[in-house]
């Protein structure tokens, strides 16, 4: 595995030796079996990162996460940095003692690290010194412990790894509520009483907001700063999501997103599960695009297992992933119009077409949304008879017409234009710095698409354009999505024409796959942006670490930047244009 990957690393850094020579004493190659990249001393991390960005062009920090190596008493922080021109990742890690994990924050170098470092602090307890606002992000303030640590157990804890022993052969059926009744199923810190609790987390939240003062100097009125909470229960937020905004009149001066209301610690569940069990769970991340979620996870585990799916499976994968993109973008466009106040008529026109694609998914995988269709080294089953014909009818006849209709319907509409053009502008530099991905990044003039930058599957065989726009506003994000639907249609047209007959699974389907020890990062261009799965295996049936780089979550880092200076009503439109899915934001 290491041998196979090393030419890629050569490609990124030109000569790997030179990188080590550039950073003598700072950098050592990660020589663990199946691992990749470099180890950096924590005290030299900021220096290394700054020079990596400025001298070597790694300007895009994709993923930051921690791994708890409990047996070694080590806490590791893993960074994946990319060049925005394309190419594979540069992976670097820093190791700190588990008892006192302190790592310098890289928010100053890559502002996109902001939420990800907060997540690592929240779930793993890694302290990032110099982080401007290191508070919990998914759990509530006052929560005891850091749940992703290997020695942390939840209230309904049964065992460290599935399958649980009491299911078979002596099935001991009981409801967990009977064993741990309601009221005793939550752990509080010893001095904590739920009744007497004042949410001090919000104090910290409000204190972190930018302050304005305008006492009125004679030329203008004296105004007070107003803090408004949009959400968590708010129809514009597409779920349970909260934005705290400070207002000067009606103009937004600062904004902080608050999330985690839907948090279920997907990653902890994933580390309890066996590899195959995680597949249906990935459906529930971005539940509008379950097929592409499957794709990313399958890629990561296939990298670890070093297997390739057969040709036919590769084609079906691409067809399904692109249909998913059409579904997701139709939904995003429809609901952007909802957010602008065009209540449900445009949304339903879009959903109308989506429904037909979901019928295809249902026929193929058995479920409209929770598809669970990909397997390691192939697919769950072949396309049922007649499905390819339905896809052809959709993709050659109906959908191109309907997308044109949507275009006529919305693009030139004066209300849409005046609400969207120039609103929520994100400059290209800021978009890269904030690690924005997907349509948000491409609407800001950065033609970065994982399908092109680092082709996976068989995407290098298809002829398609990377949709790009240069205004960086809400309107351009809409246009990028519309263009991407067209490009996806083009890809599926090519794929259904070329699809070969044959097997759809490499080897026999096995329910307990053997995954060699090592790490892998599988990333795909999800409709929302780059979706990455960082999986660490220690050779056991369950992954040691299972991390998700969630595009909706990380795209929110740039939300405050986009909203500043706009009106409250525009915040809703801007959020709609990022197109978040709370299942993925909160995980």
């Amino acid at each position: 595995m290491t041998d196979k990957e090393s030419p890629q690393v050569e490609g990124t850094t030109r000569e790997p030796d030179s990188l080590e020579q550039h950073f003598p004493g700072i950098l050592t190659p990660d020589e663990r079996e199946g691992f990749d990249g470099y180890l950096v001393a924590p005290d030299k991390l900021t220096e290394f990162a700054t020079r990596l960005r400025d001298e070597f062009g790694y300007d895009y920090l994709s993923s930051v996460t921690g791994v708890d190596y409990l047996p070694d008493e080590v806490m590791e922080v893993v960074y994946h940095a990319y060049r925005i021109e394309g190419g594979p990742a540069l992976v670097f890690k820093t190791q700190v003692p588990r008892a006192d994990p302190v790592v310098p924050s890289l928010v100053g170098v890559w502002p996109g690290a902001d939420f990800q470092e907060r997540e690592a602090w929240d779930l793993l307890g890694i302290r990032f010194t110099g982080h401007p606002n290191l508070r919990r992000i998914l759990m509530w303030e006052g929560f005891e412990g850091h749940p992703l640590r290997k020695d942390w157990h939840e209230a309904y804890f049964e065992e460290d790894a599935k399958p649980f022993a009491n299911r078979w052969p002596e099935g001991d059926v009981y409801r967990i509520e009977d064993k741990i009744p309601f009221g005793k199923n939550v752990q509080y810190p010893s001095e904590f009483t739920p009744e007497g609790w004042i949410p001090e987390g919000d104090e910290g939240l409000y204190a972190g907001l930018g302050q304005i003062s305008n006492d009125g100097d004679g030329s203008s009125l004296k105004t007070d700063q107003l803090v408004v909470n949009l959400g968590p229960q708010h129809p514009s937020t597409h779920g349970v999501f909260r934005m705290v905004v400070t207002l000067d009149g009606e103009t937004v001066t600062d904004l902080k997103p608050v999330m985690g209301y839907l948090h279920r610690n997907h990653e902890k569940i994933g580390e309890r599960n066996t590899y195959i069990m995680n597949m249906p769970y990935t459906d529930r991340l971005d539940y509008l695009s379950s097929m592409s979620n499957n794709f990313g996870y399958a890629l990561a585990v296939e990298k670890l297992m070093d297997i390739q799916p057969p040709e036919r499976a590769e084609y079906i994968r691409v067809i399904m992933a692109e249909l998913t993109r059409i579904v997701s973008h139709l939904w995003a466009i429809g609901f952007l119009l909802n957010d602008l106040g065009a209540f449900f008529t445009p949304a339903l026109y879009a959903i109308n077409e989506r429904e037909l694609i979901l019928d295809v998914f249902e026929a193929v995988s058995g479920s409209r949304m929770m598809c669970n269709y990909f397997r390691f080294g192939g697919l769950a089953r072949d396309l049922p008879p007649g499905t390819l014909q339905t896809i052809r009818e959709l993709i050659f006849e109906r959908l191109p017409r309907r997308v044109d209709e949507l275009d006529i319907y919305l693009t030139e509409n004066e209300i849409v234009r005046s609400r969207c053009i120039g609103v929520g502008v994100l400059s290209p530099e800021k978009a890269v710095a904030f690690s924005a991905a997907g349509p948000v990044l491409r609407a800001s003039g950065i033609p970065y698409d994982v399908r092109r930058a680092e082709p996976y599957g068989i995407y290098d065989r298809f002829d398609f354009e990377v949709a790009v726009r240069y205004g960086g506003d809400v309107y351009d994000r809409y246009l990028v999505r519309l263009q991407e639907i067209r490009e996806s249609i083009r890809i599926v047209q090519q794929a259904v024409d070329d699809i070969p007959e044959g097997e759809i699974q490499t080897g026999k389907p096995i329910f307990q796959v053997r995954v060699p020890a090592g790490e892998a990062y599988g990333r795909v261009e999800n409709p929302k942006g780059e979706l990455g799965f960082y999986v660490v295996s220690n050779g056991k049936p369950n992954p040691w670490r299972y991390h998700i780089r969630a595009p909706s979550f990380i795209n929110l880092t740039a939300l405050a930047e986009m909203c500043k200076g706009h009106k409250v009503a525009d915040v809703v439109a801007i959020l709609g244009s990022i197109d978040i899915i709370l299942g993925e934001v909160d995980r």
Partner: protein
Amino acid sequence: MYGVGLVKGMGVTIKHFVNTYVDDLRWFGRRYYNPEAFAVRQSPQAQGIFTVQYPEEKLIMPEEFRYIPFLIYDELEDGTRQDRCTSCGICAKVCPPQCIWIVRSDDPETGRPIPEPSEFFIDIDICMNCGLCSEYCPFEAIRMDHDYEISTYDRFSENIYNKEKLDKPASFYAAVRPLNYAIDEAAIAEKVAKKAAKEAARKQRQAEKDRKTDE
């Protein structure tokens, strides 16, 4: 000119509005509650709104549609039921939310396990309908159902399905999922043939051995 985009957009809305009536005329007013029209209304040829008048109209489930699993038993000629399940436990091991509980049967005399379950529970509150149990079952014994109308008044007493509730005859399976049933039957036939061939080979070898010893 300002407003042209708006007018064009309204044109699309009007087209959508009229389309439904045009479609209704095409079916001579029998657009609803008509299986033939319904099939077109749910296909890529659909025109106008395609609302399903549930529960009078119901979507046709594709073969692969999966909901709560069921267990299959074969009806033998003498009328007894024979479970296909051998309580090997693979479904319980692969189940992502761990909602399957199986009690393996033991021979009362020898105490050794015999291949049939004495109890089989699925907590359908927890079941996520992923279908992995049916996918990896080596004995074609657990398959996914099409019945999605399973709401109950009491989740505590009614939502843990026991073996009695899960058991369905093979004929039911053939009715719900005919294509999958055919595939399974072929697989079973192949297994039986293989077993018979093995048995025959063993017997032949035995016979040869006997003959040799006789000589």
